[in-house]
């Protein structure tokens, strides 16, 4: 079960660290996302802006897929999963029928495995309806180099043959290293490569925020990946 703790004073509290939620059954023990905030970071999206962005993306999905009949949302662990579930909830609200959502772990398909000790796997949960012939919307929190999405496309290919694949991200921070682009973007956030983007979600970190900070070393200390 996810353990949620509201910010201490009801507002945006960068200094507060929230408790690490208990891991859902079956997920990995090591490599838990941590919610320690970037010291000296600046909030660029608060909870309201995130909420609106997700609502807008959900409507865009419905528009561009003609009602999302055969859409399936697959979030990329870690926080892409929660975003996928939130989008699915919104789709279900609007269309009054459930929208399948799940997760697709891409660890085994990464192109940078040899740069760090072997990583724990995230959880893969593909809805029973499968991906064949479906429109798969991959969901991730931050789009950066594009390598994560490239790995996700390879992983998807081993699962089946979707009719089409689209990409929804909360933040696009630029600096693509591969020819990859997002179909749905919550916020375009120009950044320098020395900066770090940290996404916090209530289900995982106890609050909703997108934080922009300096220094990859600090990001590593805060448990964030240096690049996506």
């Amino acid at each position, binding site marked *: 079960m996810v353990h949620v703790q509201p910010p201490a004073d009801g507002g945006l509290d960068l200094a507060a660290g929230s408790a690490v939620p208990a891991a859902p059954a*079956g*997920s*990995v*023990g*090591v490599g838990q996302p941590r919610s320690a905030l970037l010291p000296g970071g600046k909030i660029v999206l608060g909870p309201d802006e995130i909420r609106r962005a997700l609502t807008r993306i959900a409507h865009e999905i419905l528009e561009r897929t003609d009602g999302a009949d055969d859409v399936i949302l697959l979030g990329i662990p870690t926080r892409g999963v929660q975003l996928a579930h939130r989008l699915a909830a919104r789709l279900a609200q609007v269309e009054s029928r459930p929208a399948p959502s799940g997760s697709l*772990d891409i660890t*085994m*398909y990464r192109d940078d*495995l*040899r*740069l*760090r*000790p*072997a*990583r*724990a*796997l*995230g*959880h*893969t949960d593909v809805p029973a309806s499968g991906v064949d012939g479906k429109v798969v919307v991959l969901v991730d929190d931050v789009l950066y180099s594009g390598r994560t999405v490239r790995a996700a496309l*390879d992983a998807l*290919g*081993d*699962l*089946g043959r979707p009719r089409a694949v689209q990409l929804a991200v909360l933040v696009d921070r630029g600096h693509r290293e591969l020819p990859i682009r997002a179909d749905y973007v919550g916020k375009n956030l120009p950044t320098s490569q020395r900066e770090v983007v940290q996404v916090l979600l209530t289900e995982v970190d106890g609050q909703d925020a997108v934080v922009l900070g300096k220094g990859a070393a600090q990001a590593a200390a805060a448990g964030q990946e240096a690049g996506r």
Partner: protein
Amino acid sequence: MIRHLISAADLSRDDALLILDTAGELAQMADRPIFKLPTLRGRTVVNLFYEDSTRTRISFEAAAKRLSADVINFSAKGSSVAKGESLKDTALTLEAMGADAVVIRHGASGAPHRLAGWVRGSVVNAGDGTHEHPTQALLDAFTMRSRLGRLEGLRVTIVGDVLHSRVARSNVLLLHTLGADVTLVAPPTLLPVAVGTWPCEVSYDLDAELPKTDVVMMLRVQAERMNAAYFPTVREYSRRYGLDGSRMALLPEHAIVMHPGPMNRGVEIAADVADSARSTIVEQVANGVSIRMAVLYLLLGGSEASA
């Protein structure tokens, strides 16, 4: 992550759980149309099997191939090994071939230790003499957790020739690390002299232990041990320590029956018990591939271990 997996004692609790969790994720991928992951592409895994064991070797081979590694099988028969080539020279040959990992099964306890001193790659112990068989213990723990939902506080009874069993040694160590409670049951002749120093209980009375256990694991007993006077006859051994239908009825309802294989049906385990719904023997084999995939991935799938 550690560089070699030679003993179950090499694994910390976190390491062991990481392997089990990773294997769990990999097991779920087994129904995919294409079950082949690119993760170990370009890596070479050598199976160095001095003892005949088709099943374990195939399990490791399947695991490596599903991760896209190249597999080279080196079996003792008909090779330079059969002609008396030393372990050291074989190791140097493997080095020259660029083995990233060597999976070794050998009749001498300690052979993987020696090998680790001669090769740069990772060494995975697939069974050395009467010493250890860590991937077996891992797949056993995985099976227990899958069937019963937990390992912490689980009561596990291991029955049979503990003295000569590498499976028993690895299981006692790993289950202790994972917080389970182990009881060994055997005739006194088949227990090591210093078993009192092991992190487990010991009993000579199987019937007394069965009603209070969650898992009963039967070890293979070789009839030849009778000739060295470890027990008087196979029949007496079976009568006192074999798991037959009436003993199985003593088990709590949820309890499972395990066996590392190969079985001596009729000696340590009756045929109807082996084929019953409580028996996990078949799924142990399937779980073996997932566990071995997890081990190979964690040993080879990242950067070189630093220490």
